[in-house]
């Protein structure tokens, strides 16, 4: 039976080695470029002939815009709309990466923790910098819970700081675990199809159901990543 972990192996397509650093163009890089091209192409094609009554493609783009705009207004407030381009890009990148990863023979780069962690740590560093830029040194008060007794503060501040600093870890682990587990499960059940011969229809049915489930997960995880980014943005802008 096929090794369910084999699909996550990174294969260099164009080996590049600069001063001992492996900068190879891999199939992961290729799929990231395909993702960017697909997302960019959809938005550009959808807004090419901006009509009062939108066609199908324009409707999709407008739906995506309104979905993210609503998400930001609900979770980060109106001030958050300044950061709409970044959040919209993040959402489209993760969504398209997850969805394109479900195409047979495709590579899911969101199933690698280094990719999700790079996105999460970028969000974390930028939002923390934004918090200090808006509030100055006052942002440090974010780590002191309001209304806590003075004697508890030496205990509560480290807990608050740790709980703040693990945010990028939980953000990236959540996306990576969901994508990797889903793809492994698909592969395991797909492996049973050939192994069971004539009775392979049973795991085949499970695989079809799982694939539908994975489409939901792909959207949901992109949504959760974006919502949490908005919530962290809210914390940086409003400090509660």
């Amino acid at each position, binding site marked *: 039976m096929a090794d369910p972990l084999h699909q996550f192996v990174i294969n260099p397509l164009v080996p590049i080695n600069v001063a001992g650093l492996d900068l190879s163009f891999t199939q992961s890089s290729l799929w990231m470029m395909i993702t960017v091209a697909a997302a960019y192409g959809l938005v550009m094609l959808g807004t090419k002939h901006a009509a009062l009554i939108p066609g199908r493609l324009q409707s999709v783009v407008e739906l995506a815009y309104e979905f993210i705009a609503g998400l930001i207004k609900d979770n980060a407030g109106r001030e958050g709309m300044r950061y709409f381009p970044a959040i919209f890009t993040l959402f489209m990148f993760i969504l398209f990466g997850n969805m394109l990863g479900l195409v047979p023979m495709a590579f899911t780069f969101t199933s690698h923790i280094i990719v999700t962690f790079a996105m999460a740590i970028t969000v974390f560093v930028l939002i923390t910098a934004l918090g200090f830029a808006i509030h100055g040194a006052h942002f440090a008060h974010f780590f002191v819970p309001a209304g806590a007794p003075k004697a508890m503060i030496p205990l509560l501040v*480290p*807990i*608050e700081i*740790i*709980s703040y*600093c*693990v*945010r990028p*870890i*939980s953000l990236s*682990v*959540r996306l990576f*675990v*969901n994508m990797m587990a889903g793809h492994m499960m698909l592969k395991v059940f797909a492996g049973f199809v050939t192994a069971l011969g004539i009775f392979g229809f049973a795991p085949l049915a499970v695989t079809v159901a799982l694939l539908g489930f994975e489409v939901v997960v792909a959207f*949901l995880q992109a949504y*959760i990543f974006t919502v949490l980014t908005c*919530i962290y943005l809210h914390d940086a802008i409003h400090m509660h």
Partner: protein
Amino acid sequence: MADDDHDRAFADLDQRIRAARDQREAVGKGDGADRNQSKLNFGTGLTVGIELVVGVVAGVGLGLALDSWLGTRPFLTILLFLLGTAAGMLNAWRHLVRIGMVDPHGGKGDGQDRGSG
């Protein structure tokens, strides 16, 4: 003639859009509760689990790293294990408050306020 038709069609367009929006908002209230409900069932278990595990693992990892660097083994590991666990619980708790599953003001937390958060 066609232009007249268009003008007439557009004359009450604003009104019609407003009526449709009001109607959708009225329906949307019910939808919102439903959406929160499904969010509660679907991602909650895994999300809260990950928050708890990440807190503990990050605390212990940081503690071990600091201990081997400062040579204070095992005190910082123990301390940061406890703090990390607390931080993980805090994150899990905040997530549950955010989705409206528990009342942050010391209510019974019996799910009475589900969907409000």
